[in-house]
């Protein structure tokens, strides 16, 4: 517990540092416009990172989230183009997302195949379905209300997506840290056998979070479609890396059982500020992703570095 608290302390210090450096480097960084823009440009990823936190603490992984985002967005586009009212298309796209999650859960919970393998396969398959729907076209021309929701401020300059993120972040925090469901998520991740011996409904919990993951990813995909105003087959491609990086950087253990929602939220802020700072310095997206990759390796190595450092200090004494 102490170690975790200090990990969050470290994250907070890093965050302050990044903010300070960015602010010194660019007068634009701290302006409200840029801060809102910073969230707006990655808002879909950070929404999915919240539910990914549940999945990884539970001892699983979902590599298919970005493909579900793409599939939901493309399904929406396809439906609108086919003349379905946009409201109905939103509902169907969300249902497709939940179905994708249920499909993952069927193989993971039902057949007992590791989530890594299942979601690696469905990551390809769901992306494939997205491409089947829109092929190599781009679909745009959504109803004005849809584009407006994605692009314009709802409360002052703050968009719907950012409001949703704030609401979801609060909800995710409360569910994970304050409810019985959250407690179950931790125990199942920490020691599945203990959870089963204690009469917990392990399979139901796992199925629920995978379905939630599909649903939330679909919503994020729709938000992305609304923000960009168009969909393409490769929409949200590769987002899973950013999302997983945020969660692991937040101190969630890849082996499950450990981590907190506040850690994830701090890590989200770090990643956003880092990307925004680099963008202000005109560093391209690919390089930004590379830096994130480096950050991911560093974050899984921190326990080792700390241990080795401790041993060295011990030796010197």
């Amino acid at each position, binding site marked *: 517990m102490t170690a975790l608290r200090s990990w969050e302390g470290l994250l907070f210090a890093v965050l302050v540092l990044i903010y300070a450096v960015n602010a010194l480097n660019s007068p634009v960084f701290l302006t409200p416009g840029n801060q809102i823009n910073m969230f707006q440009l990655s808002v879909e990823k950070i929404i999915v990172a919240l539910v990914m936190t549940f999945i990884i603490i539970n001892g699983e992984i979902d590599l298919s989230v970005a493909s579900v985002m793409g599939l939901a967005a493309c399904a929406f586009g396809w439906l609108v183009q086919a003349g379905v009212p946009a409201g109905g298309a939103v509902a169907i796209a969300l249902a497709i997302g939940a179905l994708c999650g249920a499909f993952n859960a069927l193989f993971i919970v039902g057949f007992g195949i590791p989530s890594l393998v299942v979601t690696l396969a469905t990551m390809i398959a769901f992306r494939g*379905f997205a491409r089947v729907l829109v092929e190599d076209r781009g679909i745009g021309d959504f109803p004005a209300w849809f584009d407006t929701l994605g692009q314009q401020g709802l409360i002052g300059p703050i968009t719907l997506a950012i409001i949703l993120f704030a609401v979801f972040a609060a909800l995710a925090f409360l569910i994970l840290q304050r409810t019985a469901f959250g407690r179950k998520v931790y125990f199942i991740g920490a020691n599945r056998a203990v959870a089963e011996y204690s009469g917990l409904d392990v399979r139901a919990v796992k199925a629920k979070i995978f379905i939630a993951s599909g649903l939330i990813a679909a919503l994020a995909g729709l938000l992305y479609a609304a923000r960009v105003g168009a969909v393409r087959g490769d929409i949200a491609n590769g987002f899973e890396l950013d999302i997983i990086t945020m969660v692991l950087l937040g101190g969630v253990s890849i082996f499950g059982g450990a981590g907190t929602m506040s850690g994830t939220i701090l890590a989200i802020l770090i990643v956003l500020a880092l990307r925004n700072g680099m963008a202000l310095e005109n560093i391209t997206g*690919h*390089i930004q992703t*590379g830096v994130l990759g480096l950050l991911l390796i560093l974050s899984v190595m921190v326990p080792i570095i700390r241990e080795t450092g401790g041993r060295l200090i011990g030796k010197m004494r």
Partner: protein
Amino acid sequence: MRIPLGTLRILVLLAVFAATVLFFASQIDGYLNARLFNRISGSVAVIALIAVGQAFVVLTRNIDLSIGSVVGCSAYFTGGILIAYPDLPPLLVPLLAMAIGALFGALNGFLVARFHLPSIIVTLATLALFRSILVQSSDGSSITTDRLPTWLTEFATQNAFTLGELQIRWIVVISILVVLAAHIFLTRFRAGRTFFAIGSNPDAAAFAGINAGRTIFLAFVLSGALAGLAGFMFLSRFGNITVVAGLGLELKSVGAVVVGGVNIFGGSGNLLGVLIGAALIDVIDTSLVRWELVSEFWREAVLGLLILLAVAADTLLMRRLLHRKGGSA
């Protein structure tokens, strides 16, 4: 008579492969012609190489998701070096590409073997990291065919020999030789068996005095080197290398390995199966493009479902098999 499980797997794969080819032959006019064979064999050559590399890694209970980026990087850097030094002896060039790939693989292997980091995380990170190295060094500029020596761009279509109308290209010959060499290494050499041993039972391997760290490191280096060789072929086939070269190849390599019957939890598998798996995936990929009934955009969806089906069938089958054993014990 009982057929060993491994042989049975290969036979089933061959049957599935034959059925797939026959199916497309019945659907597509003029499917079974030499030109198609020549085209497909060239791309199978590339997939088979990276699938073999992936198989080494998967056998040890790990995974290498950075392969696509390594292919892109080694193609790009090899091309760049060739443009700077066009007089390099041609034989040296593929070796150079392999060395570049091996270097990337060594970084993966070092992180996984030395610090016991989960390979999925490490290679997910290096997938992005290597790609960004490529972007950074290319600075947006691309390798183009006209800047490369002609011997290189012609190499991909040069035939080693022809069988009637079938052209057997050098890259296919090289790829098959690599698969065979790797197969012989894994089945006939003591060092090859350690890959199976540490994937099969890490505890027992430690007990038997096998150095797991060294073997895992080697697996990643091999995976990198073969991705490098694939990068050389990629360069030769396409000539134009952009920052997206090799994108997504890691998924095809995992697909070929899994469909080819390598246990995703390590310890068992056969490279001949992997070769058939690579061919199967590529045939489906290429044929869907020509099948009029279904849009070519089904390729990825079919690949994903194929992988899922292969893993599910294998898992459930093996479980039933082991259950039966458990019951009789």
